[in-house]
């Protein structure tokens, strides 16, 4: 169905090609995942498939692209759309109609499909993406997940034979993500569509796709069944793709020579079986459950190895007793609507690392916006570092509370990175050498030094995200709120960002992180708050939260893979919940000798 021959493409004004000599052919009915880090050329490749490159975007293109026998270079994008449906990243700009029905009809109407048939197609495609009955709803009122599914429906209504989706789940919560994947699986089974899915995450994809293709720096570097790729950790790390957490445990076992490559587990049951099998052979104290005391011993050992990494995961710091945040009976309602926050009581100590989790619309961001006075309580009060947000202006609070938003493009407006960082300082009244000094410090700290006098919009999304963080850091906030710091970043980007946040945390900054990425939450946060329908439904350590399956299910969240594995191994581990692969490895004798 898809044939690429020696495809090379260079964007206008770019010195390096974004795609280099790609050769690829895909058969009908296959479900293929296209992986790779940011900037590897995944989006560029999908744009080549339906002719937007070179017909809309110019640049240097060589080689050939054929879709179902048609030469893409010589067929208009619009007529290719009948064969190949492309769903782009941002659903917001793909929704053209005001009502759901109007939007779904847009495609077929352009192809002059008779009205009767269009009506049928609307109902059919809405049913496929599970939006039946939404026909008359206004598109602007849909949730993020619904918008994303509508974007897919709009393409399906044209009845293409091939469906290409460019990171359709990057901005969704876990529930929204699983709904998209369920939709795709159903499509493939019922309609026998050929699907090419561009994605970052691997965990949900593994058992759904037939084949995986990996791009790295514009080159096609790997093609094969997913399990082969996911067991090859060095390759994944090299290409910036996140490995499955359980496979990290397995890889260590493999390196020790205990198991073969094919035995590296890729799901929880396999990992459970493997650990049970190996524990009597190589375990620290075979058969004896590990007790809490031993956990502490081990954790001290880990502290030496990983520095700050695991410190105070169990015990919050007691030395500094200043309250960073104190919230009393906070209720908030948007104009005349039902309350978005109900009776929130919360105190956060200085120096905590707290994660806010919950479904989209649970009230996480609404709560966070109270911390710097962007929103003010309808009733109750919010006191930040001794300042009541009702009495202190946001611009004043900004000196103490840093808020990094999800989309860096909403704040960048200066011509150079340096000027962008100076903006917040000027607002706070800094001038001259003090300002220069602080900017220089933060540029160094965030690794943005090489881009000092570059235009921010000429940089990639990951760097722009970093600029947004840096522009807040110059103010040296005591409290840092980060809303989805890793949306749309690849694994390498996520790690860079998290390392920075971790560094700030150990320097004493109070961190409040909003995230859908449960692996990150489990790994970094010391305290987790689960929100549901504007209320706090659970507050505790990651271990406590992720072992409470009931509350998680009610909040439409899922525990990270390793926590689930710990729960499965309850009889061995007792009440402990492990959140990192290294903790599991600690159970084994050779694990103790690592680093020696």
């Amino acid at each position, binding site marked *: 169905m898809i044939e690429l021959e020696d495809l090379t493409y260079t964007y206008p004004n770019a010195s390096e090609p974004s795609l280099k000599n790609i050769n690829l052919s895909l058969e009908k009915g296959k479900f293929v995942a296209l992986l790779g880090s940011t900037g590897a050329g995944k989006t560029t490749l999908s744009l080549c498939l339906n002719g937007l490159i070179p017909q809309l975007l110019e640049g240097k293109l060589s080689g050939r692209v054929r879709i179902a026998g048609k030469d893409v270079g010589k067929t208009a994008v619009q007529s290719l759309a009948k064969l190949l449906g492309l769903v782009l990243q941002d659903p917001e700009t*793909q929704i053209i109609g005001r009502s759901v029905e109007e939007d779904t009809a847009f495609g077929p109407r*352009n192809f002059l499909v008779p009205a009767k048939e269009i009506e049928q197609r609307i109902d059919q495609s809405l049913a496929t993406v599970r939006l039946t009955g939404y026909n008359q709803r206004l598109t*602007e009122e849909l949730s993020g997940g619904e918008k994303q599914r509508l974007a897919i429906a709009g393409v399906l209504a044209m009845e293409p034979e091939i469906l290409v989706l460019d990171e359709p789940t990057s901005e969704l919560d876990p529930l929204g993500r699983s709904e998209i994947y369920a939709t795709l699986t159903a499509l493939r089974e019922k309609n026998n569509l050929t699907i090419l899915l561009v994605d970052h995450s691997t965990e949900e994809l593994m058992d759904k796709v037939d084949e995986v293709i990996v791009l790295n720096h514009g080159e096609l570097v790997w093609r094969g069944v997913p399990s082969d790729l996911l067991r090859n950790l060095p390759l994944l790390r090299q290409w910036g793709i996140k490995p499955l957490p359980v496979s990290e445990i397995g890889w260590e076992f493999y390196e020790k020579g205990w198991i073969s490559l094919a035995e590296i587990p890729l799901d929880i049951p396999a990992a459970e079986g493997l650990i049970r099998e190996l524990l009597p052979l190589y375990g620290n104290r075979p058969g004896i459950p590990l007790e809490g005391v031993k956990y502490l011993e081990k954790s001290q050992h880990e502290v030496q190895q990983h520095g700050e990494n695991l410190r105070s995961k169990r015990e919050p710091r007691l030395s500094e007793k200043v309250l960073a945040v104190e919230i009393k009976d906070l209720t908030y309602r948007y104009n005349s609507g039902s309350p978005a926050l109900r009776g929130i009581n919360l105190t956060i100590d200085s120096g905590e690392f707290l994660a806010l989790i919950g479904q989209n619309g649970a009230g996480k961001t609404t709560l966070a916006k109270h911390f710097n006075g962007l929103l003010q309580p309808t009733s109750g009060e919010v006191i930040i570092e001794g300042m009541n947000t009702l009495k202190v202006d946001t611009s004043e609070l900004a000196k103490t509370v840093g808020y990094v938003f999800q989309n860096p493009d909403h704040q960048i407006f200066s011509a150079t990175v340096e000027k962008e960082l100076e903006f917040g300082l000027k607002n706070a009244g800094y001038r001259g050498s003090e300002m220069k000094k602080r900017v220089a410090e933060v540029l160094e700290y965030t690794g943005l030094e090489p881009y000092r006098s570059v235009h921010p919009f000429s940089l990639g999304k990951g760097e722009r995200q970093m600029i947004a963080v840096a522009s807040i850091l110059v103010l040296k906030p005591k409290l840092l709120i980060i809303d989805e710091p890793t949306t749309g970043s690849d694994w390498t980007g996520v790690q860079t960002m998290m390392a920075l946040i971790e560094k700030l945390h150990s320097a004493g900054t109070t961190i409040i992180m909003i995230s859908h990425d449960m692996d990150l939450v489990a790994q970094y946060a010391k305290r987790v708050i689960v929100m549901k329908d504007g209320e706090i439904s659970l507050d505790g350590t990651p271990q406590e939260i992720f072992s409470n399956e009931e509350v998680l299910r009610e909040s439409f969240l899922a525990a990270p893979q390793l926590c689930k594995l710990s729960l499965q191994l309850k009889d061995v581990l007792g009440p402990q919940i492990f959140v990192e692969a290294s903790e599991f490895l600690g159970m084994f004798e050779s694990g103790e000798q690592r680093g020696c």
Partner: protein
Amino acid sequence: MLEYLPGDTLIHRLDVRTKMLGFIGFIIISFLFQDPLFQLGILLSAGLLALWIKIPLRKIWGMMIPLIPIIISIILITGFTFAPERFERVSSQAILFYALPGERIGATVGGFLMGTTFILRLISMMIVSSVLTLTTSLEDFTQFFQKMKVPAEVSMMLTMAIRFIPTLDKKRRQILEAQKARGTKFKEKGIIGSIGSYLPIMIPLFINSIMMANSLSMAMLNRGYGLTRTWTTMRQITFNSRDYWTMAFIGLGLGLAFYIRFGLQLGVL
């Protein structure tokens, strides 16, 4: 801009073309008469139409209140500027008083009456056009454009503009919040200061709009826009018996109005 108000009255069900004809008829009648009494009658019938479709009164008030200064100034201006020679009736030519000594700038009775007419006309126009937009969906309007042979691009542009107003407004709010969180103050002194403090909003909004427009153009091509110069009409608009009856009624009303105005010479000043 007032949005579509769902409902199932006769006006809602009428064909968009009938409604347009009625709208034009209404305007013509309104411009035939100069006498405020006649205008009051016209305003009353417009009000009845509005009541019929259960117009949200608060919205109408919201539109009226900013107009009050304009209303007062119109009456004053017409009162003083319409010279007596412009009126047919003797009673209208009467001069009430002079603004300046030496019989200069006289205020005529007719002028004030004319001002009142202008105001009543303005208000009935507003009501009638609201009735039209509130009872007609955007889809119907695009159909109307199509029937009137307006190019498809024009109606497409109109639909898209309306679709993206809420999206851009959301962007604006997000940008405003992001900049506030960095300590931007929006109360700088002087014109330069206030322009300067809005740059952090305007520049990202501008850049984001361009980026959105870019991906929108891709999305439209993806969905086959521009393959043919036309597109499928989803709902054929057709005339019903109620449309013919309404049109006959509009015709009758117009005829009557012309007879009163030119046959009986009524309604002039």
